[in-house]
Structures are given as C-alpha cells and as structure tokens.
C-alpha cells in the first residue's frame, strides 16, 4: 500500500505543476499548443496520487507489489521522455525555418545593396 506522505507530497507537487503551467499560459509565456502535454502530465499524476487504489491496481498489473509509488515515478519518467522527443521535433522544425529565414535575408540584403 502507498504510504500517505508519498500520496500527499505527489498530489501537492502535481497540483503545483498545473498551477504553474496555467499561469505561464495566462501570462503568455507558454503557448497552448506546447502546454497540452504538460497539463496532461499534471492531470495524470494528480489523479494517480489521489486515487490510491487505482495506483495500487496499476502497480499490481506490472507486478510491483512492494512499493506502488514507483509507478508514479515511472509514469513521470515516461512523460518526460515523450516531452523531450516532442521538443526535439520542435527544435528541428525551428532550425529548418531559421535556415530559410537567414537565406531569405541574405538574398534580400544582396538585392538592396545592388540597387
């Protein structure tokens, strides 16, 4: 069975994550498009912290009998992996676009100089 202090600490941490993400969107420092995955992470972790029976059930599916909160860590790590992969694709796109912008700028400057 999950110890109570772990459940409480995990619930507070995931709630804080949700609040911070919300505030970042509100103050326009985080776009909704990139916030959805963070919100999903926060909601899932908060849900599993509060729903202690659910966490135990999921742990038993994976044969984790001794310490169910390990599943919280595993799910958190999984989300971090997905997030990193997502950012890699975003960075790739940005660097492609950056190349195009730099090339366009160079062509425009050359045109201006020759006028």
């Amino acid at each position, binding site marked *: 069975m999950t110890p109570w202090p772990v459940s409480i600490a995990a619930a507070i941490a995931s709630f804080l994550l949700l609040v911070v993400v*919300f505030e970042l*969107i*509100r103050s326009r420092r985080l*776009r*909704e*498009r990139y*916030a*959805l995955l963070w*919100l999903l992470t926060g909601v899932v972790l908060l849900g599993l912290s509060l729903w202690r029976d659910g966490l135990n059930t999921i742990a038993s599916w994976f044969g984790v009998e001794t310490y169910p909160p390990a599943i919280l860590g595993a799910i958190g790590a999984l989300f971090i992996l997905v997030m990193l992969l997502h950012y890699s694709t975003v960075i790739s796109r940005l660097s*492609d*676009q950056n190349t*195009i*912008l730099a090339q*366009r700028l160079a062509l425009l400057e050359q045109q201006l100089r020759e006028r």
Partner: protein
Amino acid sequence: MAELAAVAPLPRDDVLAQLADLKRIAVVPALNEEATVGRVIDEIRAFDPDFDIVVVDDGSVDRTAGMAADRGAHVLRLPFNLGIGGAVQTGYRFAFERGYDVAVQIDGDGQHDPSQLPAILGPVLAGTADLCVGSRFTGTGEYRSSFVRRLGIRLFARVVSAVVRQKVTDTTSGFRAVNRKGIALFAADYPHDYPEVEATVMCVKHKLRLQEVPVEMRERGGGSSSITAVRSIYYMTKVLLAIFVGLFRRYAVPLEEEHR
C-alpha cells in the same frame, strides 16, 4: 441574386457609395489554391473594382502566388507555412501599416462568395459593429461538413456565446469585415492554429462590437480542407483551453497607432 436582397441589410449600390471614400482591402489567405484564387480575386473586383487585394500565400507549393500576382493583387509570400492564424495576421499587418480603413477577409479556396460582401460590410459601414462575421447558420443556406466538425462548431457556438454574453452561431467562419479598430487589434494580436474562435472572443474582450449576419457559403472550389477529423479533436481541446485561460486574462483596449 434575388435571395441576396433578403440577406443583405443594405443594397450593393448603397454599400459601394459608402465605401467610395474609404481605403479598403480584401485579405485573402491561401494555401495551395491555384485553382481558385484567381476566381476569388476576379469576383472581389466584380463587386468593387477599387477594392485592393492582398493574397497571403502561406507556403504554397503550387502556383498560388503567381496566379494572384498575374491579376495585380498584392502578394505576401511567407517563407514557410505559418498556419492560418499567422497567415491572416500577416494580411492584417499589411492593412494596418498601409493605413486601410476597412478590411474584409475572404478565403482563397472559393468557399466565400464575394457577391455577399454587402452583407458583412453593412454593419461595419453603418458603424454598428467593429467586426462583422458572415454566419452559415443564422438563416438561409445549408452547410455540409463532417460530423466531428459540426459537433465542434456547435460546441464552440455554445461556449463562445456564454463567454461573450451574446448569441454567436458560427465561430469558425473566416468570412468577415473589420473597421480600423479591428485591423489594429488583429495586426497586434491574433491567435494561432484554429484562430477564428479565439479571435471572436478576443474582440469582445477588447470591447469591440461584434455582429453576425447570415451568408451562404459554397462548397470548396479546390484544394482540401486543412482540418481532418483527428486534428479537429486536438484543436477543440486546444481552443477550449485557450478560451478558458483567456477568461483569466486582463485585456486592454488597443490604441489605433499603438503597434507597428
């Protein structure tokens, strides 16, 4: 065009007379619309030959930009695809910097009928609205689209109506007219991805007056809709989140020459 008289609050000649002294522009976002963009330009000119037209080519890989340039429209070619929100905002920035008084937004895919421009221009010219949106659902005309889209459109109509405390029937329509205030706001700030819903809310939050008028829309003339069923669900979540968070933002009323 017998039905049009019933749809339009003002006859075409009255609208044209009121437009005569105004700098006016049509913003036409287009992504791979070489088959239709030329016809859209011709139809806008058929309504009013003095309407300036800016086609925003959102990274097309076909002859969209060439077709528009051949007809003498201003063409803004984006270096890569920004999505409809970024493309449309580019058009409003152009309109703002060139000092236009009135702008209409018409899709390059031919689904909006420029002969219905009097309907959406009427309230803006009469000074009763800062933003006037052509709605497919308030009156005449049928509109066919996928089940998920229809569901989303209806859901957004409910949510947006509640948020802006005004009945809104078509939050996803990109057929609209704005005055200088609306041009300034959209030039300064415009939502991304699936922008019409958020733009509607944003306008009302900035104390711009919104009005809907019934219009008929046509089947898309060519190309394909950029929104598929799976993406619709993603966009729905994203837009609902944006509207929700927007409730907790403070909005300033933009000054006309504030942003450049």
